[in-house]
């Protein structure tokens, strides 16, 4: 213990704090930007305009919404369990932000004035498992919001959400095992570095994990409760699902933010595990390109979320369960076997 503690020096501490602050701000701002992009893109898909009045192209719409959230009256329903009702958004948002410290944005880059800087807050031996652990804790926010509101719609939303997350978490984690086997590590940075061959194009999606990637992507959308798997908040059946009783106050904003940061996390994980993270052509020559590649890849996944929301109808509940347990889970297991066999002969 003392050896670990003694090795901490004040510069490392300062650097980490600054990085955490930056990552935190990115986490806070991503829902704002994402929300604007989502509303404008959805409007495009649905042949309408979307928010375009507040600021140029409606860019400040999300900011206006945020201000509205902050100043609206905070109503707690009389029948609700006050304690859990208040706790739920906090429980949802904290694990969501805790994950942001392992996002590997880019490689170690020699910056002017600052010197060598790692473009991630930290990396540890069990980074991938840490991400999975935190996302699995995030579901409590939804469950507690559903139960604490003491309303039938919220309760049904919370129940559906927990059942769904338990089911799809399995295939989500199992889909990652194949890539883990190939990378030989659970450290996100090492996983990214293992994909740097072929001039930065030796991504796991090409190197024998296309099936794993598809399973992961589907499970990830279900895990974040997005269309076509948005049964916990299906508005045609459940009004608003688990957040029905949350009037547009800061509590709702927190639930909203947790959802978007979780989407970001899932996209980061997909990028890091399957699409080579910051790797791409010419990254070795110009390391700063890595940041751009990373951003492009994540934007692709975020756009995919919006695209799906604009195009696909919702699953029925029994279809959702059948699909998770009878299709995705066996496929994920098959993928592990295939990866293990390939690993035996290739690596």
């Amino acid at each position, binding site marked *: 213990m003392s*050896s670990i*503690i003694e090795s*901490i020096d004040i510069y490392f501490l300062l650097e980490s704090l600054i990085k955490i602050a930056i990552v935190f701000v990115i986490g806070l701002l991503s829902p704002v930007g994402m929300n604007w992009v989502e509303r404008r893109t959805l409007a495009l898909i649905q042949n309408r305009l979307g928010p375009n009045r507040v600021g140029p192209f409606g860019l400040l719409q999300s900011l206006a919404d945020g201000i509205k959230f902050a100043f609206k009256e905070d109503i707690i329903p009389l029948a609700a369990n006050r304690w859990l009702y208040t706790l739920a958004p906090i429980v949802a948002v904290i694990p969501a932000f805790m994950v942001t410290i392992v996002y590997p944005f880019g490689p170690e880059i020699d910056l002017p004035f600052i010197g060598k800087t790692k473009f991630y807050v930290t990396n540890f*031996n*069990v980074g991938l498992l840490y991400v999975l652990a*935190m996302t699995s*804790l995030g579901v409590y926010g939804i*469950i507690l919001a559903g139960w604490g509101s003491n309303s039938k719609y919220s309760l049904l939303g919370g129940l559906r959400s927990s059942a769904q997350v338990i089911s799809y978490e399995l295939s989500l984690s199992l889909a990652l095992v194949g890539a883990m086997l190939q990378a030989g590590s659970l450290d996100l940075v090492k996983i990214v570095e293992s994909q740097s061959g072929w001039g930065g194009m030796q991504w796991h999606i090409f190197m024998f994990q296309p099936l794993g990637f598809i399973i992961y992507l589907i499970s990830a959308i279900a895990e974040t409760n997005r269309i076509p798997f948005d049964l916990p908040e299906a508005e045609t059946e459940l009004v608003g699902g688990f957040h029905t009783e949350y009037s547009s106050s800061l509590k709702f904003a927190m639930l909203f933010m947790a959802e978007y940061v979780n989407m970001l996390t899932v996209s980061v994980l997909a990028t890091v595990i399957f699409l080579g993270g910051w790797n791409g052509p010419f990254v070795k020559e110009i390391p700063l390109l890595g940041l751009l590649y990373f951003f492009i890849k994540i934007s692709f996944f975020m756009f995919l979320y919006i695209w799906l929301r604009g195009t696909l109808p919702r699953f029925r509940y029994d279809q959702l369960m059948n699909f998770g347990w009878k299709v995705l889970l066996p496929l994920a297991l098959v993928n592990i076997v295939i990866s293990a066999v390939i690993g035996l002969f290739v690596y």
Partner: protein
Amino acid sequence: MDQIALDIPKLMFLAFAGIAVVAAFNLILQRNPIYSALSLIVTLCVMAALFLMLSAPFIAVIQIVVYAGAIMVLFVFVIMLLNIREEESKVDRQKYLKWAAAPMFLALLAQVFAVIRYVDAQAPPIQSPNAPGVNPADSLGTVESIANAMFTTYVLPFEATSVLILMAIVGSQLLARREKKEDIERIEEALAVEQSEQELAHRTSEKSNEEVAA
């Protein structure tokens, strides 16, 4: 710096241990099962932090993934599904447990003291797995070292455990199926009875109709 370096881990340990104990007490004292479940989740998370301080990151994360993230979600799910609000007072039936509690507590206390007194407290040398020149398989508590131990030295207990889990799965499946079969039989029986009653009623009504006709 040296002084602070020595004190921080101790303070952190005290803080985490304190939270764990408070949450554990809360778990027992709460009447509402959902509060108890939440306290248990807090205890498990704090335990994970304690594992982390003992430089066992893998066990810490697995603690959260398996217990706090999967098993407790199931617990909370069941509590919500059955909508158990308050614990019904079953104190009368369990009164004798009160008398068993004291000796059990004393035995536990004795055990703790024995562990503190006799077990060698010398911790193995801890290396940060990310430090340069350290093979992750050699440093304690990493995925590599645990996997090595699990699939070489302890491969038999590990496989035995998986067989045990398989047995549990088969057993639960059997229980669920049997219940279902019984249910089906019961429903079929009930339907048959109903049908025969209906037939009886039909016949009698026919009879009465015939009588009326006659």
